[in-house]
């Protein structure tokens, strides 16, 4: 499969009054065309920052570290729209409203935002907001754009006569569908979906996820699915990347992550998750809480909570080890633990 996006060593840090918050540190992964990648982790692990970092929709205090690469279809988006920061050496600042970057946003890479409830402007009609997105990026007339919206509505399963409704007249599930329609409006190559179903009820969530999988297959778009819900990625993703405290700790196919778990954090995460299937087992809580990213631990960031941690883990940052082709883990004891850890 053709490679679409290649992220290399991406580090995004936030400047705060007391120093830096190391939100994303050295994340690398690739996505092929038409493929879904799940980005899982708990809140504050940097998964959203990573997702938004691709299109560089970040707050003004975000700086990208020199050496980070986001290669999208041959273009390095980091080089495209950032410039070396004068204030902080070794960092690049994001240029807002960069005209070249705008050609990528939505046209090539679109997003489904967290909480579609709030993603639409309440005082504009939903249809008009999608039409606006089309008109901004494409040289078409308003009628043509409207036609396109009608097609999109049919695709996501909203009746045509709802185009001229305001967001408050939609139910939560419908807003989410409209958001998906908007994300597909310009035939993007990549959709970044940030917790697309978190605020929805299970039945609606199930339906939306089914819809997304179907449309994605049909339109052959790649998708990054950012979520905290392990079971959602199990259902949707081909590849999974697990993040913890700004690091990517494990990456592999869905099967590898769930059945051949190689990182202690992934194991802990899977063991803490209740399932509706199989035998009822006592869940294992992870002791402690995630580290403060303004002051991350020196060695492995998971070491203070890790049941397998040894002295070296507290001292040295673990290397990234490829345990089997395509299956990567960031752990000192990857080889010893591989096969020992049971996801189930």
């Amino acid at each position, binding site marked *: 499969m053709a490679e679409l996006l290649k992220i290399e060593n991406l580090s995004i840090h936030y400047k705060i009054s007391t120093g830096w918050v190391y939100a994303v540190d050295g994340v690398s992964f690739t996505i092929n065309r038409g493929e879904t990648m799940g980005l899982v982790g708990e809140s504050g692990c940097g998964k959203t920052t990573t997702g938004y970092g691709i299109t560089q929709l970040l707050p003004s205090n975000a700086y990208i570290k020199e050496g980070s690469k986001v290669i999208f279809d041959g273009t390095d988006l980091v080089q495209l729209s950032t410039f070396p920061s004068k204030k902080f050496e070794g960092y690049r600042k994001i240029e807002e409203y960069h005209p070249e970057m705008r050609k990528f946003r939505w046209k090539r890479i679109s997003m489904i935002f967290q909480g579609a409830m709030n993603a639409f402007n309440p005082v504009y009609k939903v249809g008009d907001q999608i039409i606006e997105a089309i008109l901004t990026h494409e040289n078409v007339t308003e009628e043509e754009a409207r036609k396109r919206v009608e097609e999109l509505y049919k695709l996501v399963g909203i009746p045509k006569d709802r185009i001229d409704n305001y967001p408050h007249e939609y139910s939560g599930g419908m807003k989410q569908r409209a958001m998906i329609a908007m994300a597909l409006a310009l035939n993007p190559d990549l959709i970044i979906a940030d917790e697309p179903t978190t605020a929805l009820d299970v039945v609606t969530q199930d339906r939306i996820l089914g819809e997304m999988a179907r449309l994605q297959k049909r339109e052959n778009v790649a998708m990054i699915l950012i979520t905290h819900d392990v079971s959602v990625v199990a259902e949707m993703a081909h590849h999974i990347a697990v993040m913890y405290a700004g690091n990517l700790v494990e990456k592999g196919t869905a099967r590898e992550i769930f059945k051949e778990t190689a990182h202690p954090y992934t194991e802990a995460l899977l063991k803490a998750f209740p399932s509706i299937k199989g035998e009822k087992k006592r869940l*294992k809580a992870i002791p402690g809480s995630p580290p403060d990213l303004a002051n991350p631990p020196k060695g492995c960031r998971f070491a203070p909570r890790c049941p397998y941690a040894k002295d070296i883990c507290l001292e040295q940052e673990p290397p990234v080890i490829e345990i089997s082709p395509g299956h990567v883990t960031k752990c000192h004891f990857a080889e010893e633990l591989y096969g020992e850890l049971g996801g189930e």
Partner: protein
Amino acid sequence: MVNWVVSKMAEGNGDDRNVVIEVRNLKKYFELHVGMFKFWGEPIYVKAVDGISFKLHEGEILGLVGESGCGKTTTGRLLTRLEDPTAGEVIFQGRNIATLKGKELKEYRRNVQMIFQDPYESLNPRYTVQKTVMEPLLIHGIGETYDDKVELVIKALEDAGLRPAEEYLSRFPHELSGGQRQRVAIARALVLRPKFIVADEPVSMLDVSIRAGVMNLMLDLREKYKIPYVFITHDIAVARYMSDRIAVMYLGRIVEIGETDEVIFNHVHPYTRALISAVPVPDPDHKHGRVEIKGEIPSPINLPPGCRFWPRCPYAQKGICDVKDPPLKEVSPGHFVACHFAEKFMEEEPTEKTVDVS
């Protein structure tokens, strides 16, 4: 926990155990005042809870599950008498709590405690942990001296897994993590030694790694003090982990209630079936069949006639489902279902109207 479950199962269906609280045909209608229309015509009601009955036994956790708007939170608020019921009874120690007043009501409030969803909002940001947990003691005049009270607070905090408790006493909520905050809320509920606890989505705001710890804590406390819980959640996997029995609610009614494994694996009601088939499973090999239900939850203002679920039900039959309201029927010991075709679904697996999505 296993011992507890085994000993409980030895007692049969648990019906001979002491009933802590009994709910009979409980209803709560909220009146809507739509502009000036309130002056004439029939008043419009939102039927949030519309005739539910169940019993909560000693040491039992009853999971109340359903989608948003199904009335599960209102039920919790009715049990704690944060709302007055429109009709029906909540019997506690032989008395209907709706008739309690003054001193008796205060006594009732001592016996029932609530744990709320959002620990970021349910704790007063200006109170230290000690003040938060001690407040119920002051209100109810428990503990003779100040030192006695502090001791009770420390005991409650330790029970809630905040050790060493002394370290937490003078902290403010903003100095605590989400999981620690929820533990403080649990300590506050426990300090009065309540007869039962209503927990409204207590873990849904917490991160996965912390959630398991809080759930285990609640299970351990149940085992230690035999306090029954009503555990309200939208997450069926969580309900399965926590509860002994599960009640599935839909539009103000209980549509199915029974032992947890009965409801999860031998569910009968089409809504339960759809709900459970929609739950994602953390296993990439799991083949996901899907029971299609139509549309979305209707508004509780204009309820459909007959069975509330029929407009969305794939098995609904005209002339039966849209006319008669199905009562809760016992299909196997302790397992009740509100569906006209419950017996039929029990005998034969209904032809799965599923869509393969793999």
